[in-house]
């Protein structure tokens, strides 16, 4: 399958190419938004077209018997392990967001008529590991996640790839965060320069008085984009933070829309970006405050450190506001490591590489240390160090 074949075709042709029956509304939305190109606002910093020009094999997503384990493991889009008692089903998605800005959100749903539905019970912690084993493949799946009202759950997400190449992963969550609950998502994604590319298109619906905490730690090389569409009801809150540490020719980042629909809803979004080599970081984030969302509080900030002359940060924080009764702020800065600080450390016998690492980690730590689970925090720090030393091998 070549996704570029979906360019500029009508809904009938689309339904035929994708072998989709019914689902007219989805076909219509995808057709209206069109296959992303470099002219698409959301994908302009991400070389999406070259991914669509490749020929991919498609996979069969036949459900397997789920083996008991301490984590949910999804291999090439199929769940193979899960903790005991975890409720996981393959079902059609009941609540698709019909106002999503991302065409690949709709394409993902069109390609995955059955989604992986996960119901998280009580105050619990769940680990999901995504594993990719197929080369030259289009791996597409969507996960629908529900938690329970008045409960506080945490989801840790991790990615593992075998020695694969030229694969494209299209996946994403539809998260429904129940009233008066908290769902905390901690995503750690280390990638190599080659192997696979990934576009993750998430929709997070935060009910009344619920809290969403979304922390992403994107490290290493490769090409990956996460797109977030967040809807906030009355007194709902999201705390989104994104750490990017990229090297080589990596192009990765976040494109997001946080939509305040309910009164007194609050959002805080913080991005810290550290870019080495020829890497390009992306933070294209819109906060939209609807007329119904009086007394909103919204805060958005992006900071970037460029470690190399060729590194580049595309930072675009934006506010779109339709009311007067609110508090909102946004900003973006890009700079380099402080020479005085670097020299101070070196003047105490600390090597150039270690001094850089200390300063880079100090910059990143304000996000890493917000991960409450010590083991997960250590895993993130270890991954960070591993990627850092790989990027600095010429100095070692």
């Amino acid at each position, binding site marked *: 399958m070549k996704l570029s074949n979906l360019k500029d075709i009508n809904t009938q042709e689309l339904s035929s190419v994708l072998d989709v029956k019914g689902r007219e509304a989805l076909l219509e939305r995808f057709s209206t938004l069109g296959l992303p190109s470099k002219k698409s606002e959301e994908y302009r910093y991400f070389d999406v077209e070259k991914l669509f020009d490749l020929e991919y094999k498609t996979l069969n997503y036949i459900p397997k018997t789920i083996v008991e384990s301490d984590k949910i493991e999804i291999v090439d889009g199929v769940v193979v392990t899960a903790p005991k008692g975890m409720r996981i089903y393959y079902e059609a998605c009941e609540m698709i967001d019909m106002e999503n800005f991302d065409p690949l959100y709709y394409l993902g749903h069109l390609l995955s008529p059955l989604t992986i539905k996960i119901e998280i019970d009580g105050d619990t912690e769940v680990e999901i590991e995504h594993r990719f084993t197929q080369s030259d493949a289009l791996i597409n799946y969507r996960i629908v996640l529900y938690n329970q009202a008045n409960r506080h759950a945490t989801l840790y997400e991790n990615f593992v790839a075998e020695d694969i190449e030229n694969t494209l992963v299209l996946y994403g969550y539809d998260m429904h965060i129940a009233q008066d609950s908290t769902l905390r998502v901690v995503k750690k994604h280390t990638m190599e320069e080659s192997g696979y590319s990934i576009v993750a298109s998430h929709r997070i619906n935060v009910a009344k008085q619920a809290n969403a905490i979304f922390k992403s730690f994107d490290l290493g090389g490769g090409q990956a984009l996460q797109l977030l569409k967040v809807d906030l009801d009355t007194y709902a809150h999201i705390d989104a933070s994104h750490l990017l540490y990229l090297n080589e020719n990596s192009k990765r980042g976040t494109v997001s829309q946080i939509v305040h629909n309910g009164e007194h809803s609050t959002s805080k979004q913080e991005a810290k970006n550290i870019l080495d080599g020829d890497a390009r970081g992306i933070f294209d984030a819109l906060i939209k405050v609807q007329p119904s969302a009086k007394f909103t509080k919204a805060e958005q900030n992006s900071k970037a450190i460029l470690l190399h002359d060729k590194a580049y940060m595309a930072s675009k924080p934006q506010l779109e506001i339709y009311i007067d009764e609110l508090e909102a702020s946004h900003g973006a800065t890009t700079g380099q490591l402080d020479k005085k*600080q670097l*020299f101070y*450390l070196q003047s*105490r*016998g*600390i090597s150039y590489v270690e001094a850089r690492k*200390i300063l880079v980690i*100090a*910059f990143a*730590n304000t996000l890493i240390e917000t991960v409450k689970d010590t083991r997960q925090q250590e895993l993130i720090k270890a991954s960070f160090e591993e990627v850092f030393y790989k990027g600095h091998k010429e100095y070692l």
Partner: protein
Amino acid sequence: MSKNSKDIIMDIQNLQAKIGDKEILKGLNLQLEPGKVHAIMGPNGAGKSTLSKTLVGHYDVELTGGDIIYKGKNINEMEAEERALEGIFLSFQHPVEIPGVNNAYFLRTALNAKLKHQGKEELNAAEFLRAMKSHLADLGMKSDMISRSLNEGFSGGEKKRNEILQMLILEPEVIILDEIDSGLDIDALRAVSEGINKMKDGKRSFLVITHYSRILDYIEPDYIHVLKDGRIIKTAGPELVSELEENGYDSIKED
């Protein structure tokens, strides 16, 4: 001052350096002896801070002539971290603040870099904290200062005590103190001076750069060098301090 090479730990010969386009050191000669305290005094803009920066390989300074011979080896091209590992230490006039870098982590990293360089075993966190305890007490530093971010929010006195703490831990052989007394109240000055005096072991050499003679009441110098317009114009014993206080730098005739 002419000595045998074995009596000299650092021999600075005809040193010329500039910062940006400005030539600041213009043929400076100075020999540091082991176990001695050398005080450098001079008017504003004479080149005192540039000298300290040049000796530790600061990126601001371009060395345009002369040589720095340290323990018999020319270190003109040596990187800053290597100079530090070899035993050259600068206590900064304005130590930089580094938010997010834990002071204890920084100190242990610096100490372990030095131990590794010397082929010794590195210290773990517990061993390091044990080793720190007496130094903190001697300097009148609260133990929470090492769990804070490096120099962040420290008062002027706390920053200088932290510099001396690093000196005590790293045990350097040439210790350059750039305006160590600036911004210190009398108690802090006493604590800092005691820390410095504790390091006197008859082998280490001290280069005390100062505007004022006050610090020299606490750290007794062996030599006073007057630095003016990028050169050492006079070297004498401690008695020169009172002459400078009385008559100022203009009265000094070049040797």
